[in-house]
């Protein structure tokens, strides 16, 4: 039976990896602590659900979900990043938290706060090996996130855009002096994070077949833990951190029961923050001391 539990752990971990990457990308590259990401995750899913509920054809609803995620992310950039660029990350943390609460209450007001069943677009979104069940949603989510990690590493190392982004992550002032259009790159980052996080929300809904206005909170908190444990700013760190938390959660539930899950995970997070704030893989993308 353990194989199924490990599969469950990996599948659960892949959700945290997906959102963890979004967090670590935006902190690592433009030093902006974006706590509104869990809301973008939820907005993608809830928009798609609402449209499907009204009878919109599936592909259109899914694309609309992505668009809403992007627009919401752009709003955060316009209102917060544009005005606060350069100010300390503490203010960006507080500002993005306010956006998280705004988006959640907006959705609660329009679509209600209770949990909805996401229609099963594919009859059985799972693959079965003997009695082992593997969720296809998470599998593609995991595949996409690994693809993205390779893609992003390649982009950062070998392309001009990547070089510009790395310059920006070192210091926005010098990047501007060097003639890099920082604003355009930052906007591109926010669009990428919006698209990517909303996609995460859709994959989650396809697999767990459930959405709610507050779904972002539970996943967001654990994804932040994954980012930190892996190493703030390191994309591979988010992958390692996410998987570790997934497995840890599954084993803790198996051994001690669900009520100790929060204690175990956040105790590990606190320990790591104190002993090794740069996380398991260290802030590869950017010097963590600066934050």
């Amino acid at each position, binding site marked *: 039976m353990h194989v199924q539990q490990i599969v469950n752990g990996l599948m*659960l971990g892949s959700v945290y990896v997906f959102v963890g990457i979004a967090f670590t990308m935006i902190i690592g590259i433009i030093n902006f602590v974006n706590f509104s990401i869990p809301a973008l995750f939820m907005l993608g899913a809830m928009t798609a659900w609402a449209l499907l509920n009204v009878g919109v054809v599936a592909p259109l609803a899914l694309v609309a979900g992505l668009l809403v995620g992007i627009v919401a992310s752009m709003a955060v950039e316009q209102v917060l990043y544009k005005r606060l660029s350069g100010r300390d990350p503490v203010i960006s943390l507080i500002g993005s938290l306010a956006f998280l609460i705004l988006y959640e209450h907006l959705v609660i007001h329009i679509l209600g706060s209770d949990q909805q069943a996401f229609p099963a677009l594919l009859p059985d979104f799972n693959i079965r090996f003997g009695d082992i069940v593997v969720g296809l949603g998470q599998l593609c989510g995991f595949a996409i996130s690994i693809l993205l990690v390779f893609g992003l590493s390649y982009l950062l190392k070998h392309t001009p855009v990547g070089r510009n982004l790395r310059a920006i992550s070192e210091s926005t002032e010098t990047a501007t002096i060097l003639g890099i259009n920082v604003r355009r790159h930052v906007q591109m980052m926010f669009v990428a994070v919006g698209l990517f996080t909303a996609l995460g929300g859709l994959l989650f809904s396809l697999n767990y077949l*459930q959405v709610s206005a507050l779904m972002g909170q539970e996943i967001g908190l654990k994804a932040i833990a994954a980012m930190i444990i892996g190493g703030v700013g390191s994309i591979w760190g988010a992958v390692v951190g996410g998987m570790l938390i997934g497995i840890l959660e599954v084993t803790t539930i198996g051994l001690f029961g669900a009520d100790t899950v929060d204690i175990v995970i956040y105790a590990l997070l606190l320990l790591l923050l104190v002993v090794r704030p740069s996380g398991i893989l260290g802030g590869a993308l950017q010097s963590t001391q600066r934050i």
Partner: protein
Amino acid sequence: MKHLVSGIALTVLAAMASTSPASAEDLTLGFSIAKTGPFVSLTLTNEIAVDMAVEEINASGGVNGKKIRLIKFDTGGDPKQASIAVSRFAKDDFALGVIGPFSSSECRVAFPAGERLKIPQIAIASAAPKLSEPFAYGFRNSINEGAIIGSVMKALKEKGLPAKTAAIAHATDDVVSKAIGTKVLPPLFEQYGIEQKKTVTFQYKAFDVSTQVSQIKAENVDIVGLGSPPEAALKLAKELQRQEVDVRLIAGTPAADPDLPKRMDGAGQRMTIGATFFGGYDESTKSFSEAFAERAKAAGIARTEPNMYDVNAYQIAMIYAEVMRRANVTGKQSEVAAERVAIQAELAKLKDFPTLAGEVTFNADGDALKPIYVMEIVGRKWELLGVYNP
């Protein structure tokens, strides 16, 4: 800075003025609703049921020749607001009693306040065991989970349905679910000679229960006793379907949502629960459901079928009308304190009061005793298995 503080003080006075003074000839009742916040999907429609009851009472001549006047206050499901609601109803509106609050967490804060102010309250959906026992002025028009799930077990036995081995799955961070999982189910399983195997736990807001279901699958039991709110029941049923685990879920009132079979979308087949209302039971319940559905559509609410909490709220209004009649209440401001005590006395000895969906009695703890409808999910609808009196 100065102008700012005076600005805020002005707005405070405006907020106070909104509470209209009680006119002499009305009997005032407070209605504590959770229109925003976590319970909104269950509470949204309580207002319709209570309005229907009050209109019915006032149309048939009111109580002792006086009309019932309702003061509504939205607590948003927040315990602090529920306590503020009670002190407002008691001190500002001179209410004779309070319909609500809705949830256990709100009751735990509102009942002590009601006790101090000596104003009766009848909770709509609170099911935490022994909650109202220490409060003379705290009543609950909901049945404790032990009686509900007991009836479910009785129905399974009578119908000879397979129930030799059982597991328990309950949420750890919701007081009612934890009570069901730890204090209600184990003794019942023993009483009915069912071999209890593993207990699995989950957080009610957790989105992934695959681990727990894999543990249940390993036990291959006949039934799973469930202590959890509707959302978690939905998640568990869907995961059981995904991992192809064939088992019958049994649960209490937290999972009693008329829309649950539709939301299960094929999962949770043969899930059995007990509830204090079944729409299609008899003529009076059918006509109530139809009238309710019209108003729900008019109000643009997605769910048009009344849930048991709507019926509980409707019954509470009716109970108040009855006890106020028995205590021949006048509603004069000077008499309000004495009349609240009289109402409390009448409520304490309320026995077999006939109302919609059966007769209501309040036991010594202040909880309701009324018929329990045991039903199971077949396809996308609830099917009635039997009616049991606790």
